[in-house]
Structure formats: C-alpha cells, structure tokens
C-alpha cells in the first residue's frame, strides 16, 4: 500500500499525517493521531459510533477514506467543551459509553441546527446512532434538555 501525506484541520488545528492510500479516517484518527474518542461499532456505516463532523456535517468516519479530508475540517468528540455535556450525564444519555461519542456528535449537530426540528423529530434525527443500552429515552430526553436550555438562554 502506498503512503500518502494528507493535511487537514483537526479540532481547529492544522495536522499533516502519512496514511495508507485506502486508510479509513476512523483508523487515522484512532491509531495514527491517538484520538481514541471516536469508536468503531460496525465498520460499515450502520451504527454511528464513529460519527465525526466533516466541514460541520456529521459523517461515519468508518466510511470516509482519509485522503478525502485533505484540506477540509474534521471535528471529533475531543473538540467539545466538557461542561457543556453535563446535561447528558444527568439525563442518563450514556451507559456503557461505546455509542456515546457518536451520539454526542450527532446531538451537537442538532444543537447547532435547531431548524432541523422543524422537519424531523429528535427520534428520526438520532436514528443513525445505534445504542444497545439506553433504549434511547435517556439520549432523546437529554438532547431535549440541551435544546431547551439553549432555547431559554
């Protein structure tokens, strides 16, 4: 496999990394850059555990070849401000935690685009993130609480 050099913006800072030509963004983040917050749940775009933001949009990083992010902006769960996540801790949004970083990244996208709720329910918007532990109420209610806080702020 040929190594190629890729430069992009990661969590606000420029990075440059040598990767294999077919390498997945998920593996580059986890194994080359040490950002293990992003998880693998299925490796085929079904579970959403590997969700990151690519130019502000949530994507499954297991389906993105790293070369495609050249010159673009990637944000991972490590970019989030921990105190802002407190409502999720209170609301039972995480149990085992394996789905959680992906859930949080999708939730943040919804938080930043409240207009989405004009056309979709929270449950529809979260349907790309599988969780086997919570039964989803803890997740959906926590996002609702975060949106409520922002709405009233």
């Amino acid at each position, binding site marked *: 496999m040929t190594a190629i050099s890729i430069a992009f913006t990661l969590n606000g800072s420029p990075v440059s990394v040598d990767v294999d030509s077919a390498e997945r963004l998920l593996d580059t983040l986890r194994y080359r850059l040490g950002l293990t917050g992003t998880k693998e749940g299925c490796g085929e775009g079904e579970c959403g555990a590997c969700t990151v933001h690519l130019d502000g949009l949530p994507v499954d990083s297991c389906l993105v070849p790293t070369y495609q992010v050249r010159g673009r902006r990637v944000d991972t769960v490590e970019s989030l401000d921990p105190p802002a996540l407190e409502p999720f*801790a209170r609301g039972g949004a995480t149990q085992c935690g394996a789905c959680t970083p992906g859930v949080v990244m999708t939730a943040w996208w919804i938080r930043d685009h409240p207009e989405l709720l004009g056309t979709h329910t929270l*449950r529809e918007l979260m349907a790309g993130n599988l969780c086997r532990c919570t039964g989803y109420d803890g997740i959906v209610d926590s996002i609702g609480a975060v949106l409520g806080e922002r709405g009233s702020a």
Partner: protein
Amino acid sequence: MHRREGLAKLTGRERYVDDLPLDDFLWGMTVRSPVPRGRVTAVRFGADVDWSAFVIVDHRDIPGPNEVILIERDQPVLAAGYVRHVHEPVVLLGHRSREGLRRAVRAVEVVVAPEPPVLDFRVPPRPDQIQYGRDNVLKRLKIEKGDVERALAQAPVVVSGTYETGAQEHVYLETQGMIAWLEDQVLVVKGSMQCPYYVLSALKHALARDESRVRVIQTPTGGGFGGKEEYPSDIALHAALLALKAGRPVKIVYDRGEDMAATTKRHPSWVRHRTGLTRDGRLLAQDLEVVLDGGAYVTLSPVVLSRGIIHAAGPYSCDNVRIAGRVMFTNAVPFGAFRGFGAPQTLFACERHMDVIARTLEIDPVELRRINLLRDGQTTATGQVIRDGTDRVAVLERALELSDYRAKRRAHAAFNETHAAQRRGIGLAAFYHGAGFTGGGEVHLNSRVRVAGLADGRVEVLTANIEMGQGTLTVFTQIAAERLGFAPQDVAIAEADTGRVPNSGPTVASRTTMVVGRLIERACDDLRSRLEVDAAVRGASLRAAIVRWHREHAAERLVGDAVYERPPGISWDDANYRGDAYGAFAWATYVAEVEVDLATYSTRVTGFVAVQEVGKVLNETLARGQVQGGVVQGIGWALMEECKFRDGAMINNQLTNYLIPTSDDVPPIHVAFLENPYPHGAQGAKGLGELPIDGPAPAVLNAVAAATGADPRAVPLTPERLMAIADFGLRSAE
C-alpha cells in the same frame, strides 16, 4: 448521584481495550473451521504469504490441558484434529499489520473431512449424529410438584400450545477484545469482560500457570448483556497463547462480522404447555416441556436451562406442576449467557400461553392473571413459599392504570372498526425474575469483598465486579458512601484486577447490587470494627479515625472484609430441584401497545409501560435506564432480531442485515417502580438488570394477537412470519 464515569464517556476520554496505548505489539487473529463437523485432515498455509513474518499458534502450543474450563471441560481452546461447529478456532496468527493479518487468515485453508452435523435441536438425532452421551442431551432437569397427570385428567378444561423463540445476538456496541503480555514472569491479560475470575481460572488451567503468574484486568466494557460472561475466556486464551509464543504484547479485537458470527447468542427454545383449568380460569395443573439449543459445547447451558425451567410456570399459584427441561447438543456455535439467562424464553411461552388460554376460555386476560397471581404464603413450582409482602396484583393494577388499558381497549376496537389498513391492540405480560445465582449457587461462589481505609481518610472498595454500562461504579460508590456517611468523592472503586481485588463473583445474574452491594455494606461495618468505633461514627469523624489509625500503624493496611452468608431461612435441594430457588424475586407487569400495518404486515410498538417491584431503587436514573434499555432489547427480540443460519453458520452477521431497534423504531418507555425493600439486599435493593428483558416479547405479541385476531406463537414476529399466519388481511379486504 450522577453516573460516576459519565463525563469521561461523554467526552471520549474513557479508554476501552482498543483505546489503550500499546507499544511494539502484534495484532492477533483467528483461523476458524469452515464447516459444522468433521475431522481436520490438513491445515494448508498458502504459498503467496511470507509466513516467517507471522507468529503461528495451534493446539500443540497449549502448555496445559486443551480445555476452556467452565462447568465441563469438553470445549477445546483450539480444535485438535476435530471440529464441532462452524467458526471453531483452529489456528491463531500474530502479525504487526492488521491488514496483512487479514490477508494471511484468508490464505490458511482448514481442510475437513465432513461428518453429518445436527443442525435442528427440535429433531431427534440419527445414530450417526450422536456426539454427546447416548442421545445428544447436554443436560436434563426436572421440577415436580403435586400430581400433574391426575390433575390434568380431572381438569374441566385443558389448553395446550407450543411456543418458540429464536437466537438473539447481544450487539454490545464494543466488540470483544483482549490484550496479553508478559511482565517479568507474570502473564497479564487485559480486556472487555464481565467476570475477571472466570478468565483467570481458564488461563490458569489451560496454560498450566498458578495464580502468582497470571493477572487479569478488566477494561471499561462497552456493553456485555451476558455476551462477555464466558466468551472472554476463549479470546483471553488466544491472546495469551500468541503473546507467550511471540514474546511481545498481542491484541485481539474482533470486528463486528467476526463477533456476530463466532461468539455466543441467546439459546433458541421450544416450549410446550399443557394446562388444566377450571372453566373460570383457575390453574389446576401445568405440564411443561422446555427444550433449548445448546450448540456444540456445554458452556453455561445447564444453568441457563435451570433458570429457564424455574421461571417457566410464571408468577402463578398452581398445586400441580411438572416441568421437564433439556438442552440439546447441535453443531452450532455454542449458545450462551444473555440477559435473562433462559427466563425470557420460558416466560415468553408462559405469558403468550396465558393469552391463548384466555381466548380459548373466552375470559379477560387481565382477569386470568389476577386470579392466579401468587399471593403471599403460596408456593412457586419449586415449592418456594413466597412471603415478601409484595402485592403482585397491585403491580398489575398499576400497569393497567398507567397504560390506560381499559380505555385503550375500547378505543382500539373503535379504531379497528373504521380503518381498513391498520389494526391497533394492547397486550400485557406479568412476570418475575429471581436475583442472584440459583439455589446454592451464591454459597458455592463464596464471594468476598474488601473495603480499605486509606492513609488520607478515604476508602477504596475492592471487588471483582465490573462496570459495563449498568452502573456498578456509581451504585457501589453510593452504597459505601451512605454506609460510612462519606461524600462520593471520598470513595474510590478499585479497578477489577485479580492481582488486587478479591473474588466477589461474576458480574451476572442481577447479583451485583443486591448481593455484592450488601457485602460492601458489611465490609464497611467490618472496617469500623477494626477501628473500634461504632456505627454512630460517620463522615468526618470516621475519616479522622482512619487517618489516626494510619498514623499509629505506619506501613500497615487497614481493611474491612466480608464473605457471603446465606440469608436465614433459605434452603435448596439441588438433587430434586425443590426449595428456595432465589433469595428474592423482582415482580413486574408490562403493557405494550401496537399498530399493525395490514399492507406490509409490519408491527410498530406505539406505547409501552413497565411497572416493577425491585425492592429499594438506589438510583432512579440508572434504574430507569436499565429498564428502558432492557425493554428495547426485548422489543427487538420480539419483532426484528433474527439470526439466520445456513449449515450452522450465521449468514446475517452484520448490522446491515441483523437489525436492532433505532430511536425511531420504539416509543418512549414509561417506567414505574413500586418499592418493597428486601432486607438482605444493599439498602433494600433486589436485582434489576435482567427483569426488563423478560416481559416485552410476550406483551408485544399479545398486543398483536389482540389487534389482529392472529395467534402468533414464535419470536421474532417479523412481517414475513405474521403474513404467513394471518388471515385478517383477506378479511379486511372484503
């Protein structure tokens, strides 16, 4: 208290096994059997791979007995010349590059001279298919109470039915993974698991190492649900064998496809009920036959069968009960522990059968349950006298009230009259779940817990019980903090490292809070007695006493401990399956509402109410989350989760074609607790973790039956299955 490690998980800082930094290591992978049964005649290593760059392990590299020790010793660590199921591990490979390893695994050919496999546990085996004992029965168990034959002969009505459930995959979101390395002479194995001491005993046995040369450490575990009860011993052995041969750390992390194909699943079941009743629905006799598919090795099947048959008659009073159970050998990947452990299968049959009885006798399904539910002083199938003060009818009533059951029934009838394309219905299930190991199990476990007083006045709780999402870290912190009057931050919970923590038993069977939590309370009390202070000394003064003790006993350890003691008045006869099967039962009634689409035959759960009595609820958010998560797993099993097998292999081993519920497939799960503190559980708690998976399948199918008039007898009730048994589609078109 909020989840202790919650923020670490939310921010991605929590490190699971595949997140740990590891230098100069090899990845490990497994070469598996391509067929369900036969003699291995050759293992061929392809010519286009440079094998000198690989570490290769087979059964000849195992220093001790080639056995994964558990209840029996029939399962090899690596197949030695004979395979009994598809995907059985044969050869292990280690290599620096994961991609190179994947190609190498494909380049190894395991050549097998096939022999006739058994692939259907319901069909009696032919002589050339016998592979275990005389008849392929892995285990037989029987419960008998009263005189069933006589009672059936005299009963005014007898209602019979058979019920089936399919395999279910755990789909913990973190796949199985393990790291092994040598540290001086000590083999260290670290990974995702529920039972560090099970892994330790498996390693000691097959690697012929004593306790001083093996250490097992649990990493934060991304879901288990039973799937990480016994299987981690296999993968730990594999990683250890590779590491010992390589002389370097080895990491094995399954990808989703391998995890789904090669690890355990819920036991498929077949249950027959023959029930004698009075015309108004009082139970006179229950005659049951329970058959489970065990797969190719014994593993935990005998205890799954045990819990299955003990729960099979339901939470009802009946003087004449006979339950004959057996687990069958088949050439399938061994079925294993899964939340509920046999009870969801038999309770599905029981509670679906109750509705079949109600329809047959033309009585109200609620009434049928109300008149038969156990009252205090009455006995279960094993003769256990229930006298816990819980009003089981009140649990039922509360569920009816919260779900607005009566009004919904009327509303659905009206809806169904006026809609051609949809049917609505509501159904319920009343059930129970025994907490802790069955019978004398807890006594055999002999669990031990320590609470250490630290020099700075804090305490550390040392147990082998682990966090896998269910809240152990938080609940243990709460229990110790409450007992000592400490703030949560003054309670540390030790990592589950067999080099440091005592064996407090496995994290299974809804035992952690009730049984181990109670031991923590007693170890806290013991710590006080070592300090020679009484129970009134709490909080700051207790912390000061700990600090003072350390000043006076430099370099000594201050440890309180506790060993399991059977609660008074409990007795169990294992030979005859009579007596007190569990120290405590949790009780529940769940109500499901569904809408069935008559064009697509798909069923949507539109409402769900879960009411349970689980003793004292220690943490409302965690407890509610356990119930909601369990219910949604149960809805998945009821309607969509179907393992498809061909020649003994799971062929839909992907999340693309094995579907689990998404947030958009399920309604909000309305949870309510009735609390009746259990005197022998921590702060009055009973076990909770498994109960929620027992009720959804029968409640949902009963709702479908009510909605459509169909009579579904098997889960998952996929649209294809419902279409096959339905005639309501035609009727509605008239």
